[in-house]
């Protein structure tokens, strides 16, 4: 397969995301702007300007109408996907590290950093979808401070009223969205920072990646670890490949030690692991630095990776990917 290289950013990528249909790919980076691309040919549709700091995180709603972004300039912004206009700005005392839409697009959860005397906080906002989207409430529906280790990633699982979080200590937890109480937790899910959390299509299970060199699939309700993928480098991102029994892992050693190691040793490759057998089945080379973020097309026909090198590479899978049966005929239905 021939990857499409997207050079829209001048600094390292922080997150990339496909929309619901997979025709648009959003990317954000440390250079303050957000790009949106057509995934089929790599054409850039537009850019979103307004943030004055590293854009750490983005998410798009299911209708591809609103885009939400969180940045190091302490702002969370709501954008109109079609025109690139900023519709609303929320301001916080500290940087926004993660934002995610709920599955019904009505709510947004965001994590703000613990810094300068402020506690790390998880806030849930209601998104007013009526009108042009500029009428939003500044007040969160709910807000709480997770005690102990600070949260790094979050998501809405399929259970209503709960927030799923991954923490710096490696903990995975479920919080009550209203009261902020910790409902359930798995303290030993990982041994180091949880770097990414991506839900399956039905939100019943999810994959996490961590600096402890493992990626794990967990059950969303019980938080039990279902599968573990042990690699040899710290991982920055993990994604589930829909319709195929694979997971995609991306990582590489720390950006600070990149210049002292060779390209081959750095493991700057997207790794394909078999979901069931927990074995590596393939790798894709290309990036010149660690992979910071991986996203898979919702139909499972393509994947994109964003690296520390500032490139986004979009790969449309060949026929051979869909035909390959590395372990014989094993039917896995998603």
């Amino acid at each position, binding site marked *: *397969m*021939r*990857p*499409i*290289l*997207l*050079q*829209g950013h001048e600094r390292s990528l922080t997150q990339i995301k496909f929309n619901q*249909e997979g*025709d*648009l790919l959003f990317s954000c980076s440390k250079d303050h*702007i957000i790009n949106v*691309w*057509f995934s089929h*040919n*790599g*054409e*850039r*549709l*537009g*850019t*979103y*300007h307004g943030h004055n700091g590293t854009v750490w995180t983005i998410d798009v709603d299911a*209708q*591809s109408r609103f885009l939400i972004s969180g940045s190091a300039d302490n702002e969370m912004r709501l954008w109109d996907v*079609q*025109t*690139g206009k900023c519709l609303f700005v929320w301001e916080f005392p500290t940087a926004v590290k993660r934002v995610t839409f709920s599955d019904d697009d009505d709510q947004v959860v965001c994590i703000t950093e613990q810094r300068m005397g402020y506690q790390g906080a998880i806030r849930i906002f209601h998104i007013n979808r009526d009108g042009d989207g500029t009428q939003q409430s500044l007040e969160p529906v709910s807000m709480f401070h997770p005690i102990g280790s600070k949260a790094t990633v979050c998501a809405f699982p399929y259970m209503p009223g709960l927030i799923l979080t991954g923490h710096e200590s490696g903990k995975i937890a479920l919080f009550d969205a209203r009261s902020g109480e910790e409902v359930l937790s798995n303290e030993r899910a990982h041994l180091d920072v949880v770097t990414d959390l991506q839900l399956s299509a039905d939100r019943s299970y999810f994959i996490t990646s961590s600096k402890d060199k493992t990626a794990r699939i967990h059950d969303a309700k019980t938080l039990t670890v279902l599968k573990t993928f042990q*690699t*040899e480098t710290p991982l920055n991102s993990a994604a589930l490949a829909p319709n195929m029994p*694979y997971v995609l892992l991306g990582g590489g050693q720390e950006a600070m030690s990149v210049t002292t190691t060779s390209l081959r*040793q750095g493991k700057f490759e997207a790794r*394909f692991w*078999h979901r069931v*057998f927990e*074995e*590596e*089945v*393939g*790798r*894709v*080379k*290309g990036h010149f630095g660690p992979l910071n973020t991986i996203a898979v097309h919702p139909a499972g026909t393509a994947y994109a990776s964003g690296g520390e090198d500032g490139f986004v*590479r979009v*790969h449309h*899978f*060949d026929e*051979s*990917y869909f035909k*390959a049966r*590395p*372990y014989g005929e094993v039917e896995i239905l998603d």
Partner: protein
Amino acid sequence: MAAAIHKTSWADDVEGLDQSKGEDYIDENGIRTIVEYAINDEGKKVKIIRRIKRTLQKSLVEHAVAERKTWAKFGLEKGNKPGPDRATTTVGETVYLKLTPGNKAAETELSEQQALKATLSKAGAGKVVCRICKGDHFTAKCPYKDSLAGLDNIETPPLAADSDADAPAPAAAPAAGGPSKYVPPSMRNRGPGESMSRPGGSRDDLPTLRVTNISEDTQENDLRELFGSFGRVARVYVGRDRDTGVGKGFAFVSFEDRAVAQRAMEKMHGRGYDSLILKRTVVP
């Protein structure tokens, strides 16, 4: 098309015009052929033929997706024509994804050192034998380097060594050196480890005492002074650590006269010097 043709000079103008037109037609199979002439970097005129076949691929997409394709560009892309811009979108080199079972981590996880060893053993250098202790490591890394190396060479009487060497040398030489290794005549019939230690033969003839159990600080001049009272000292060598320069507690003292050496040995054996009891033996 015509704009792409560079005119070299006014003289070429007329000539260039009739050729430079090129051709552009579409045949019955729907293949468009474009013939054009251009001048390349070397100044030569070249004919470029391009055959293009266009096929329309239809795919069903959702309404929302189709609608989004018609959206006007915005931000930095505002006003740009549809289609990927080369400045931001390029096609990379083909990469291959081969999905195979088996743990790739285990296969490719050779560290640099292991990889080196693997290539070495592949090249036939897998058998590393220490010349000192016959162990499975390089001679330079032998743990007995300091103790065994000196003792063996010294305590073997030269006569015995010579007679030994005569018999096994022809058989041993090809085995040790390998079939392709050339050994200069001056280096042949030498025991391992001896080749470099004594470049000149003359020193071997001098009567030499080995002095052990001397203190670390002992210098050549100290020993010269000490043994000078018995007669002329030809050479003093103090064994030192290569890196630190600290004495290793042994020295060789060569005399010019064998009788002097004998006397020195008898007198000095067991004597205290610098708080240690000296021990000495004759090096034959």
